[in-house]
């Protein structure tokens, strides 16, 4: 009886409103998981808490980055669009993994090149470029690529700044990334990360690494517009000068130096393809 008093048009539009969704739920790219604003906030808070409790949950740190990126990703995309090299990256959408980058070829390059330095860095730290979580929670496919590119180039930022992968070095790179790229995740990690360090490591971080990171991060060029794959043969010191990075304060442990020596021996034993073809 009460329903009959309400005009049909109002009733129909109310029912229509109840049946519509607040967000488009069709995935925009493989692996895309659309989230509504509430879910986004929930995941951001949940992954922040959980990754503080268990820092080995790289998938949650990735989720935190994606849910908190906000306006940082369009800003980075526009910076990339403003440079010819960045535009080329957005056009080609290159990926960095052991399948797309020829690691053997990098190992054959002369020692002072970027490619060889990167390969050596991977060996010293024991990191592989294949373990990056794909992007899930960014809605625009191009911005999702920008996020993915950031994740895959993160190791190269370590390499170009000559830092290792222990916790202080990771945090130093996060400070660097925050001033260089502007991602909120970098700020969140920079604030939350030091809580897990002991006093000695914290003092090294804040007295040496952070001032360096803040100074050179803000004055050097935006690292997202560097097309690393086209610069493997470039001399690494020349690249550092071009980007504006120098005098890295990083310290490497003796154990990682011995890994370098054994890797060098292994590389010299492999026959170089250029020699066999001549």
């Amino acid at each position, binding site marked *: 009886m009460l329903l009959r008093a309400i005009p049909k048009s109002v009733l129909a539009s109310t029912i229509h409103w109840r049946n519509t969704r607040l967000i488009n739920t069709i995935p925009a790219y493989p692996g895309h998981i659309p989230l509504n604003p*509430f*879910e986004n906030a*929930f995941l951001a808070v949940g*992954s922040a808490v959980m990754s503080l409790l268990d820092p080995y949950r790289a*998938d949650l740190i990735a989720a935190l980055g994606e849910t908190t990126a906000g306006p940082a990703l369009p800003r980075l995309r526009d910076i990339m669009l403003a440079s010819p090299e960045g535009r080329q990256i957005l056009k080609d959408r290159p990926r960095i993994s052991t399948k797309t980058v020829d690691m053997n070829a990098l190992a054959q390059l002369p020692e002072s090149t970027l490619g060889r330095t990167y390969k050596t860095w991977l060996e010293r730290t024991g990191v592989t470029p294949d373990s990056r979580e794909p992007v899930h929670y960014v809605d625009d496919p191009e911005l999702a690529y920008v996020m993915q590119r950031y994740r895959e180039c993160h190791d190269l930022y370590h390499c170009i700044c000559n830092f290792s992968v222990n916790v202080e070095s990771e945090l130093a790179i996060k400070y660097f990334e925050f001033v260089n790229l502007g991602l909120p995740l970098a700020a969140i990690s920079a604030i939350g990360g030091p809580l897990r360090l002991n006093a000695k490591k914290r003092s090294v971080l804040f007295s040496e690494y952070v001032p360096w990171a803040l100074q050179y991060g803000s004055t050097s060029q935006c690292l997202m517009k560097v097309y690393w794959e086209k610069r493997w043969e470039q001399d690494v010191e020349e690249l550092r000068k071009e980007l504006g990075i120098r005098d890295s304060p990083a310290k490497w442990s003796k154990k990682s130096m011995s890994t370098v020596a054994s890797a060098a021996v292994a590389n010299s034993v492999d026959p170089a393809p250029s020699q066999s073809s001549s």
Partner: protein
Amino acid sequence: MSLSTNLRRTLSCSKALVRCVNTSSDPQHPKTTSFGFQTIPEDAKETMVKSVFDSVASKYDLMNDAMSMGVHRLWKDQFVGDLKPGRQRPMKCIDVAGGTGDIALRILDFAREKYADRETSVEVVDINEQMLKEGLRRFKKTMYHNTPQISFHEANAQSLPKDKFADDSYDLYTIAFGIRNVTSIPAVLEEAYRVLKPGATFACLEFNRVDNPLLGTLYDQYSFHIIPLLGTILTGDRASYQYLVESIRKFPSQPDFAQMIRNAGFVTGKDVDGGAWSNLWGGVACVHTGVKV
């Protein structure tokens, strides 16, 4: 017993025969079943469910607490409390899909605390080895470990081996939050009928339909928006929890499931809340019971 029930029993006795019959009659359209909201070939469901439970086993109890905010404990307490195991005499119970041992532990504790009964035994049966391992670990912390009161068996609820699980041998058959994961619910119900003694009880605790529209909307929002994210945050596994909430929606309604229980030969109460089934929290969980006569 009707012709259709007899025919179904004969067919379900031999899975190979079913496949043979199926393919010879209609090879172009293999029988399908639901896996959450997806439709998959029937043969694939067991493997897919296995991989879900292999993946969730180690954090199963934690996730249950997180998703239901601890309420699943109240449901399980009420489930076992209403059954009153050990009230008349020590019972031989079988807890199917009982992997981590929640129900088995409650049965043994109830019998011991209320009736000073240390002869009641529970055999925990599960198809998934990882879940059984978690159950064994949990029971090592209790007084029942290495006693005849508890034992763990890996078996398929749809076809319990006749040598280990003889006809007419159990006083109580329980299955909690497991029956919606099986490929064929009627097969499980028929096996339950087979192994129970005449006069024994079949009891099933499962998620079911919520009738109240307000509670239903809240429940849906919570299920589809919060639970997969809890899965991502706590275990890094969104897909398993997406399967979980979808499989709840695909389960038959309260009266339909009561009818399936009757089809297997059990006698149930009337088709009302409080008769053949009893809703907990408005239908979010529900206890169905039947008696073998």
